[in-house]
């Protein structure tokens, strides 16, 4: 979008990191690394890009968002609460019995979630189907799908990567689809490069027929500009390779496979939050710190 309010987006993403750490500390389990790597992308999507109405989550002209790497849904839950889909207090029910905030996205439990994901490799096919369905109906709505790099090892992803640029031709090309790879380089067991390397991913995608944009996935302006380019691209869907850092914003989590799927203890969350806030704790964050410190004492 023209002239994005970067300072506003940066503040939202910063609060997002705080809320992710808070939620996970309360839940006692979950995936901080990937949630922190994807939050900048989701911030731009939810607060400077997608059309939606939190009061009418099934509004038929809404843009669709599919988080194929479903384990990082805390980042999405934060954005949804911030956007008004549900009250912020619900964030603390993450992973608790009876909560609509399931450990991985549950479409039927939480309005605003478009597809159940979490079993890796499935979201892209579903997103391609949604894009095709919208095109067939002549809708202008767009579909955004965020992939993890680890899950891009799944065969089903490559089935959809083969079909995406060609599907629906000649009348219903899915150029309303934009896929974003959260390329943080780490999966549960270690480094993607060592386990099953995706490289050369840009060349692979190009040879499959995708227009590819290679960006810094933490640079809000770059993310926004890439989304503009994707929207302007006709005849084919766009793939954005967003280079990110797992655990971005917290020095002791950054780039460490340990923090793929381990929740911070309350004291660790407090230390991490202070770091995210750069040492100065604004008024809104003070009760969060106090609450986590009280949890630690228990």
């Amino acid at each position: 979008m023209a002239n994005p309010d970067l300072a506003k987006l940066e503040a939202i993403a910063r609060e997002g990191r705080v809320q992710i750490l808070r939620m996970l500390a309360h839940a006692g389990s979950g995936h901080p690394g990937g949630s922190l790597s994807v939050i900048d992308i989701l911030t731009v999507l939810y607060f400077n890009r997608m059309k939606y109405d939190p009061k009418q989550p099934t509004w038929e002209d809404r843009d669709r968002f599919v988080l194929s790497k479903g384990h990082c849904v805390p980042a999405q839950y934060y954005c949804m609460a911030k956007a008004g889909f549900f009250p912020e207090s619900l964030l603390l029910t993450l992973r608790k019995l009876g909560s609509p905030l399931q450990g991985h996205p549950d479409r039927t439990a939480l309005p605003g979630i478009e597809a159940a994901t979490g079993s890796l490799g499935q979201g892209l096919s579903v997103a391609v189907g949604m894009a095709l369905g919208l095109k067939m109906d002549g809708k202008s709505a767009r579909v955004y799908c965020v992939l993890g790099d680890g899950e891009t090892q799944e065969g089903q992803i490559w089935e959809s990567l083969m079909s995406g640029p060609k599907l629906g031709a000649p009348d219903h090309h899915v150029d309303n689809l934009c896929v974003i790879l959260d390329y943080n380089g780490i999966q549960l067991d270690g480094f993607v490069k060592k386990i099953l390397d995706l490289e050369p991913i840009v060349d692979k995608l190009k040879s499959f027929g995708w227009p590819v944009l290679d960006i810094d996935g933490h640079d809000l302006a770059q993310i926004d500009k890439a989304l503009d380019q994707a929207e302007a691209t006709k005849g084919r869907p766009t793939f954005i390779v967003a280079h990110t850092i797992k655990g971005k914003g917290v020095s002791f989590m950054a780039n460490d496979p340990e923090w793929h799927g381990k929740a911070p203890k309350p004291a660790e969350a407090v230390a991490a939050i202070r770091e995210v806030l750069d040492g100065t704790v604004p008024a809104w964050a003070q009760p969060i710190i106090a609450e986590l410190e009280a949890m630690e004492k228990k």
Partner: protein
Amino acid sequence: MPAKASRAAFGEALLELGARNDRIVTLDADLSKSTMTGAFAKAYPGRAFDVGIAESGMIGLAAGLALTGHIPFACSFACFIVGRFETIRVSIAYSNAPVTLVGTHVGVAIGEDGYSQMGLEDIACLRSLPNIPIIQPADEIETKQAVAYAVEHRSPLYLRLTRQNLEPVHEPTYHFQFGKADVLRAGSDVSLLATGGTVWNSLEAATKLAADGINAEVINVSTIKPLDEETLLLSAGKTGRVVTVEDHSIHGGLGGAVAEFLGEVMPTPVKRLGVNGFGESGDAKGLYAKHGLDPDGIARSVLKFLNR
């Protein structure tokens, strides 16, 4: 009415329904000539998608189309459909995406192609998933009505279809009801519960058994899930002996469903006829004889079960 494969009746029904309902779309994974969606694809080329030999992708695509308000039929051989169980589990069942999964070429009746192409565990797999009913029609007229039902049914569904021709077992006035088994032949000595390709064989077996003085009740269980418990209880309560007949593994299919239910509610001796182990290449008739699913085989098993 001549005998017709349920896959052929499906293709005809889709073509007809497609004219009235432009939300219907088909997806195939390079087997449209076998799943019989070809006529639909020819008539409505913009609504038929052959995605290549990529069944997982096809099922995910179908989910996306369903979630944007289309009415997708995702078709392949039954074994290849349930081979993508995990995609069905999350993207269809858990997401509650109203897709009709169509599994054709079920059972040993496909014959010469052999085990790897035979849908023999599909019912067992999909019975274990919440939110996906299973329908297996027994003849042309029932198939066409089941397809019409699938168009109206706005939640996931599995339709199980045969490659081989099926002799009609219903009058032209028959009315298919989802969730309702139909008693094709009333009897008092034993209940034969059959589904799909084995329904007609069970009726033939009942005729043979009548010659031995056994009055068999024959019930077509076209909705395998949810099971029509009421009809089952009435029949089993009357006869006290139940035999299930299906071209599917004896584990977890119709026989499993019936035995599980009766075991809890009204313990009744149940004999499960079906396939125990792998299938193999051969002629369909010979395979049915080998597995005791032809009329003679069914009658023989019933006599033995009744100690006659």
